[in-house]
């Protein structure tokens, strides 16, 4: 990819240890202007620690971070003015109202009075929260807290936004609305790093880094990652999937079988070759299978397979 403009965020060999544990171990990635970048991985992968170092809330043991042209490690105070950070618990004051929370953060960033009031009004309207201005933040639902947290993060119009697991536990409807807000920010050229443990959310990012045990396993677009998956995923629909389990597992070219509620997901090396073979083997058992078709792999399938590959190589 041609480097048209300087990357909004550039991370090189970032590391952080806690005692003997290497929470972040040589992580590198870069985020282009106006891109939504995902840091994806399970708990303990190093997402939150990485985010905290990007927000200069924690000091790295090694490595460099440049955000909007500023060296974060050397000049954290300057970096903080360019970046907006929304931590996992949103950073809201439960005993202050929606308006008071927004005002507080606006003042901390010294945003001129008229500018932040206007911006706040717009953001609240977009989230459908205009009537809740005088409501205490502690009395808002999870989805509304999330939107308020985002509003507070956006009130000083940052060019870079860091969101640490902002959708955990939030209802799917609010989650969708949240992503629509992120997409409109993207259209305005804001660069975002969003960390999530929901692998299905990874699909919504422009590019993502799969993290595991403090290291970046892969870094690519969602489609690119799916292409990396060798072979294909075949879905066998059956209401007695357990009886098919052993037979399927024993077949040639089958790399992994996952039991799902209404059948099996089978990872094969080649759909074209194995589907007929599977269909025949299943027919021989006498158990009825209504479908044997290829389905599109999701990010979780990719993650599990790639992780197993890595472990086998080690």
């Amino acid at each position, binding site marked *: 990819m041609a480097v048209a403009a300087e990357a909004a965020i550039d991370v090189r060999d970032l590391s952080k240890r806690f005692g003997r544990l290497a929470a972040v171990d040589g992580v590198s990635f870069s985020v282009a202007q106006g891109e939504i970048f995902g840091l994806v*991985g*399970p*708990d*303990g*992968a190093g997402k939150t620690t990485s985010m905290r170092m990007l927000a200069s809330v924690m000091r790295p043991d090694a490595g460099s971070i440049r955000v909007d042209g500023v060296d974060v490690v050397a000049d954290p105070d300057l970096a903080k003015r360019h970046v907006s950070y929304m931590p996992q618990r949103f950073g809201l004051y439960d005993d202050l109202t929606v308006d008071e929370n927004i005002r507080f953060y606006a003042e901390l960033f010294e945003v001129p009075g008229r500018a932040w009031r206007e911006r706040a009004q717009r953001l609240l309207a977009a989230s459908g929260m205009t009537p809740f201005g005088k409501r205490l933040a502690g009395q808002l*639902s*999870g989805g509304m807290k999330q939107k308020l947290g985002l509003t507070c993060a956006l009130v000083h119009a940052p060019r870079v936004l860091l969101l640490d697991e902002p959708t955990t*536990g*939030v*209802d*799917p*409807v*609010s989650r*969708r609305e949240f*992503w*629509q807000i992120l*997409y409109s920010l993207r*259209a305005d050229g804001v660069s975002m790093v969003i960390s999530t*443990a*929901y*692998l*299905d959310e990874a*699909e*919504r*990012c*422009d590019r993502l880094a799969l993290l*595991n045990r403090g290291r970046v396993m892969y870094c690519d*677009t*969602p489609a690119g990652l799916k292409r990396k998956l060798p072979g294909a995923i075949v879905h066998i*629909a059956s209401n007695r999937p*357990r009886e098919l389990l052993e037979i399927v597992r024993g077949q040639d070219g089958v790399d992994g079988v*996952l*039991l*799902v*509620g*209404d059948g099996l997901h089978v990872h094969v090396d080649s759909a074209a070759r194995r589907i007929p073979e599977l269909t025949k083997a299943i027919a021989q058992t006498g158990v009825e299978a209504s479908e044997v078709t290829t389905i599109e792999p*999701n990010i*979780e399938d990719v*993650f*599990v397979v790639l*992780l*197993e590959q890595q472990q086998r190589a080690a």
Partner: protein
Amino acid sequence: MDPARAPSIVVDGLSKRFGSFSALHDVSFNVERGEIMGFLGPNGAGKSTLIRVLCGLLRPSDGRATVAGIDVVEDPEAVRRRIGYMSQRFSLYNDLSVVENLRFFGGIYGVAGRPLDERIQFAVEMAGLKGRESDLVATLAGGWKQRLALGCAILHQPATLFLDEPTSGVDPSSRRRFWNLIHELSADGVSVLVSTHYMDEAEYCTRIALIADGRLIALGTPHDLKRRSIGGELLELACGDIGSALDLVVAVPGVRDAAVYGNALHLLVDDAEGVAATVCGWLAGHGLPGATVRRIAPSMEDMFVYLVRASRAPQPAGVAA
């Protein structure tokens, strides 16, 4: 009805109110023997409240519930003797070892002597912790703790298992391994009621109940639910300039709704084939050539969002059935 064939859990018109807040409203369902019933819904939907009522920890405001044929209000102690419960945060003792935890929970459930030793061995093997029995729980990673917690919950061989968000904070491989264990238990006839807010875990369950705002908004197998109407069909549109495409595409006849999804648009349409045939040409005609479109299956989340919106919309009863 033959007791061996009777449903493990029967819930009928269950409601629970905390003051003026209605945490559960008129919830009814059964769980058959050996079934894995998944409760999907966001935080605050009422999943934990439901599990607590069924464990006899909360009294319902209205309705009835029986577990293993015993009414949860009349005899909660008897209910608790027959169920296993795994809580959200695993509730293991970090400063005790694996086997010390198992002994403790065994003692609480009244399992002792030779039977306890056998069950402990079973739990250790199930969790894959053979050789690590003396390790402190604090040194175990998330996936191990989770399997150990499951082991602690089944020492007394309960016929019914309640799992409250058992897979929070666990890596995907461990999650899959955990679900394999659940499937093995269910094959042995244990009924499992699982609550989760991961939509994709619905695939692992025999049947799913979607719960939002304290109400049951859908009940069925994953297969059935995904084939249900979400008010249309889904198309995925990929093109260069999503922003402009979004503004244009909503004007295409037959397109009910459009939203950005990563680098593409998801369109909700009445007739997938019809719209697919025309939309690319239409966009090209308006200055956006090179768009491609394909049909995609709705995800569980699509289903959920549609149902929640329908249930919240002010409509006459019977729409979301």
